């Protein structure tokens, strides 16, 4: 397998008013191989979107990626790039889809204009050819009558249609990685399934790697090869999808599963995770889930590193000791 993305110990920090810095993303590592789908799962504020923005160096100022972090796109060291070379990897090596298709398209340009713009940002083609490519892309993402849709303005299109156009834009320069940040959150359930199907098919046909960022475990189940669960700026558990669903091990992951309603089995009260996610300025020492963890014990005052739970399965929890390998 070709490794297309390698993120090592990513730390993102923002300054506070008293001069210190806090870390909404604190030591995140993961890899992505060609043709693979990795799901990054977590609640709002866990740092998953910030992580995805960091991949293209789009962390909004005054935030910054701390020294010691590593992001490699294939052979390219993303953190060493500046200026024009940095612009050239954006969209070309890694395409990105955002959560809300209602606001991700510029309201004053037609769909065709915006796709063609993305094509011409990276490929030296004529305007006519860019338009033809835009039409082909619309077809590829399953938009009926693509030639007519090229001249439609965003407000004339439905949410699902707009998200397909966003996908077409992200694919315009034929990137090897597609990052989809909550691509279906703003859409109807039926449209959600269609969009996920489009993404999956594109991955298969183009051999792309997909980083799927979501808070919805249901989306993960059928689509991802591997899952990384994020909590408070760290990946707390990572495993293949089958393994994670068969043997969720981190107390936070267990809590997530317990809070999802099940169709089969007796109807029972959902068990929420007690407490709320602390803000990144007030993360506890030691294990960050400790204050909310039903199984916390003395050792949890030490921060746990990623420990093996089984083959292809690691978690940041002291409970892994004894379970592992």
């Amino acid at each position, binding site marked *: 397998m070709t490794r297309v993305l390698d993120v090592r110990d990513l730390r993102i920090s923002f300054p506070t008013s008293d001069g210190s810095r806090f870390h909404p993303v604190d030591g995140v590592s993961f890899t992505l191989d060609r043709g693979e789908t990795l799901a990054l799962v977590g609640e709002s504020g866990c740092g998953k979107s910030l992580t995805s923005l960091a991949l*293209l160096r*789009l962390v909004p*100022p005054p935030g910054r990626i701390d020294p010691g972090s590593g992001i490699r796109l294939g052979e390219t060291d993303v953190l060493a790039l500046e200026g024009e070379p940095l*612009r*050239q*990897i*954006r*969209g*070309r090596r890694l*395409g*990105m889809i*955002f*959560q*809300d298709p209602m*606001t*991700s*398209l*510029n*309201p*004053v*340009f037609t769909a065709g204009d915006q796709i063609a*713009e*993305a094509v011409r*940002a*990276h490929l030296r083609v004529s305007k006519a050819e860019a338009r033809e490519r835009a039409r082909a892309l619309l077809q590829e993402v399953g938009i009926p009558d693509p030639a007519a849709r090229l001249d439609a303005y965003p407000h004339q299109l439905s949410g699902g249609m707009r998200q397909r156009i*966003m996908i077409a*834009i*992200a694919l*315009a*320069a034929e990137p090897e990685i597609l990052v989809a940040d909550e691509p279906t959150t703003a859409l109807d359930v039926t449209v959600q399934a269609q969009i996920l199907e489009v993404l999956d098919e594109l991955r298969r046909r183009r051999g792309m790697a997909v980083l799927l960022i979501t808070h919805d475990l249901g989306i993960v189940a059928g689509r991802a090869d591997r899952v990384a669960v994020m909590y408070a700026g760290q990946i707390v558990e990572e495993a293949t999808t089958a393994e994670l669903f068969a043997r969720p091990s981190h107390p936070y992951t267990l809590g997530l599963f317990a809070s999802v309603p099940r169709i089969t089995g007796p109807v029972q009260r959902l068990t929420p995770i007690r407490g709320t996610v602390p803000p990144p300025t007030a993360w506890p020492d030691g294990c960050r889930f400790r204050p909310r963890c039903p199984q916390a014990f003395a050792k949890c005052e030490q921060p746990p590193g990623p420990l093996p739970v089984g083959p292809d399965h690691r978690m940041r929890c002291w409970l892994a000791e004894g379970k592992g390998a």
Partner: protein
Amino acid sequence: MAEDGALRAAWRTPRGRAGLGFLTFLCLLALLGPRLLPDPFRQFGIVELQSARPSAEHPFGTDQLSRDVLSRVVTGARVSLAVAAIAVALSATLGAAVGLVAGYLGGAVDAVLMRLVDGALAVPRLFLLMLVLAVPTRVPLLALILLIGATGWFGTSRMIRAEVLRLREETYVRAAEALGASRRRIIFRHLLVNTTGPLLVAATLGVGDVILLEAGLSFLGLGVQPPTPSWGGMIFDARPVLESAPWVGIFPGVMITLTVLATNLVGDALRDALDPRGA
């Protein structure tokens, strides 16, 4: 919202229609009027027609040099409108460019540009212009236009900057960045077109300002130089005869008032049409 839509919406309101109607009429008058009317420089009779009352031949009367006031008012419209249009286009361009760059780049660039604008805004525009215009004995019309334009963009740049600060948080700007669009492209494509609404309003209101300013400068003898007729200059020339022949000064004054009123009506109507909070 598309700008032609805004113009149409402005046309639907009574004041927008009044303002647009008058300005259209004025433009037609300025374009065609001088062909139909007597030569504005011609002296019809230095003795018998000096400061003559309005009559069938000279509906607005004649001035103390026996020139037809109506001709001069219409030719003055030409001058005033040309000055206003070119100066405002220049101000809007400069203001938009500075506001877009400052707002999007932020940081030190923004700080430096906006402090310079703060400084420029602290000096009254008329004073600034008088300072420059009083030095040479004759100022060519084009230089006057450029000077007025170059001193009129400070407020516009602040407004555009504020608009850009809002727009740059929009997801489509972030999405364009993530696609690898260059800064120049984001600024002059994605941001500029989304600020055209407020820019249009500012420019429209700016036309009224510039007409008043040019009239003021000409009245002070620093603007459009005689014998080229301009409304402000005509009022200045009318001072000695204002009691005996008020029509020499009143008609250009009325034109200034109506034109400024019309541009303000259009500006307000456009502002309402483009304001998402209204209607």
